[in-house]
């Protein structure tokens, strides 16, 4: 029980509509911190959020918040505020009344309600919007109103479910910064849901990756990008290069090239991000470029060495054309040996646990002592 003041979910089992989505899931958010729950659509992120919020009944498990157990409480008694993907503003109320909704419920007097609602709007950058109707607002403005409303509730936990998904890229950027700033200023324990790994990296002090109803890695953002615990994690975070082979004497032989691989001997997988693959003048790793696609920030190269495939992101100025022969270098400090061993097929759910049952799975999420953990 580390998170005395934060959120602690233990062994949650949830089956909305009779379909088991979460089976024995555990998750912790330290007080005053921001955790992003990331994962592909259908992984069960929203189900988890709804379960924590009390919108979805638990079949098993516990939820603790600020040291008290809340899973038996009705949703409105949990002191949690949620900002949903759609703003869900009440159409019959104006901006100010929407923001002041929870204050009204708490019996706050009209004058104070108004002042606090205006302050809340100010905080989200909507000073002067108090008298507006909700209909004419843009998507971003509506989402800010929803955020101000959630903040006014002064919750113990703020949850945001894909709050940026419906916005255009520029607005998304602004709102992302706003959320981070407000959270930090208020020191709010916050759980944010997204399916976008870049967003997760930017927003999360900690990121939890959820795949098929299980949290497979919970760590600082960089760890998920660079030190994935499994092929599936690696794949989700865009690690295109998974090099399978057998380790002997600290080296893994891949496509005829010996790559440094610490740890015991045996079958292993090395991971390296495409942006860490470098072009070199000379070296053992010669390959033929089969694709060179300009993406704006870089050129994405696909290079083949025999039937082994490597992906590299290189600066446009340096990029060779398709068909060229190149020498690639995989810097040793960028190579990451995936923990476990048998993960050579990596079809999403393979995380090394042969009989992956609910209880054991929590090990990867709740236990920071996993081999991937830098600490």
């Amino acid at each position, binding site marked *: 029980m580390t998170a005395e003041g934060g959120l602690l979910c233990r062994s949650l*089992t949830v*089956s909305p*509509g*009779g379909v*088991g989505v979460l089976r024995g899931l555990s998750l912790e958010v330290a007080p005053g911190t921001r955790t992003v729950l990331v994962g592909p659509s259908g992984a069960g992120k929203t189900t988890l959020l709804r379960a924590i919020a009390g919108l979805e009944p638990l*079949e098993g498990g516990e939820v603790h918040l600020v040291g008290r157990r809340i899973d038996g409480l009705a949703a409105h008694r949990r002191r949690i505020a949620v900002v949903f993907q759609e703003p869900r503003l009440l*159409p019959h109320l104006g901006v100010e009344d929407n923001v002041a909704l929870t204050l009204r419920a708490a019996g706050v007097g009209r004058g104070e309600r108004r002042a606090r609602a205006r302050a809340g709007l100010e905080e989200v950058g909507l000073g002067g919007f108090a008298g507006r109707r909700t209909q004419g607002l843009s998507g971003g403005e509506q989402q800010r109103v929803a955020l101000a409303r959630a903040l006014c509730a002064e919750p113990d936990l703020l949850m945001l479910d894909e709050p940026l998904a419906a916005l255009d890229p520029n607005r998304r950027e602004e709102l992302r910064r706003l959320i981070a700033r407000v959270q930090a200023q208020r020191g709010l324990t916050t759980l944010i849901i997204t399916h976008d790994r870049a967003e997760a990296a930017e927003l999360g002090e900690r990121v939890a990756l959820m795949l098929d109803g299980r949290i497979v890695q919970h760590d600082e953002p960089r760890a998920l990008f660079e030190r994935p615990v499994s092929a599936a994690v690696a794949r989700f975070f865009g690690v295109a290069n998974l090099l399978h082979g057998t380790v002997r004497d600290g080296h893994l032989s891949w496509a005829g090239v010996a790559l440094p691989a610490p740890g015991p001997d045996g079958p292993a997988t090395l991971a390296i991000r495409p942006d860490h693959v470098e072009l070199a003048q000379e070296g053992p790793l010669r390959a033929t470029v089969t694709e060179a696609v300009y993406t704006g920030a870089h050129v994405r190269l696909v290079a083949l060495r025999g039937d082994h495939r490597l992906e590299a992101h290189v600066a446009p100025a340096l990029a060779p054309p398709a068909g060229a022969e190149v020498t690639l270098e995989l810097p040793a400090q960028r190579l990451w040996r995936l923990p476990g061993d048998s993960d050579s097929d990596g079809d999403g759910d393979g995380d090394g646990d042969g009989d992956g049952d609910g209880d054991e799975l929590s090990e990867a999420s709740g236990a920071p002592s996993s081999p991937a953990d830098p600490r």
Partner: protein
Amino acid sequence: MSGLHASRRWRDRALVAPAVSVLALLFGGAVAGMLKTSLVPLGADGLSGATLDTWRELLGDPAFVDALVFSLRVTVLATAASAALAVPVAVALRRRGLAIRSLAALPLPVPHLLVAVAAVLWLGAGGLADRLLGGLPVNLVRDDAGVGIVLVYVFRETPFLVLLMLAAMGRGLQERTEAAAVLGASPGQRALWVLWPTIRGPLVVGSIIVGAFVLGAFEVPLAVGPSYPPTLATFAFDATQGSVLAGEGLAAATLLLTSTIAVALAVAAVRFARDAEGA
């Protein structure tokens, strides 16, 4: 594991149960009573045994067959015409205020029989139209084809359908229409892709209600329908005109058969609408 889910399903059923059971008890009992009336006549020595005589008499009566055909024709015509008129009227009234909508809704609280009275005052022989025009070119009241019946129903039922559609058109349609327009949908395509899916539900449900009503109501055909053939309902009405006891079985059988047809037509309509949805 699924105990929670199962208990939710029972809770949902429990929420539906009061409405369904109240109707099953009150209304089902009335229908069962009609069935009994059609089978068990009340005679000199009280209720005798059940007999199918009434049903045999009904099905063997050529006037009944004529009434069936005539009723179905009038029902289909009146329902289709009301629906066809209601769509453009609803579209036209979409952005109009309460005052104009209330004007258009005025026929709703007026009983059918009274609407028929107004129709006769206007259209009957020696009626106002006759006086204004100095003679009517066609007979719309008591015409053999039942055009008068159809007209009265169209007048009375169109506002009902319009109101149902206007409710569905409320918030949201405007936005979706604009979204479609921005995506390059022509007015025709917008009508087909945005408007039609919005109003189809209420239109189908409303048309079923209208159709069932037209099939089984006697007031309007009695007021403006031809002397022959009767509709199913006026056939039943006539059966109890002289002596109720002599005709109540026949009337009950006719109306039960009418109800069965109405249910069958409704199911067919729902099915047809659903198929069209899939296409």
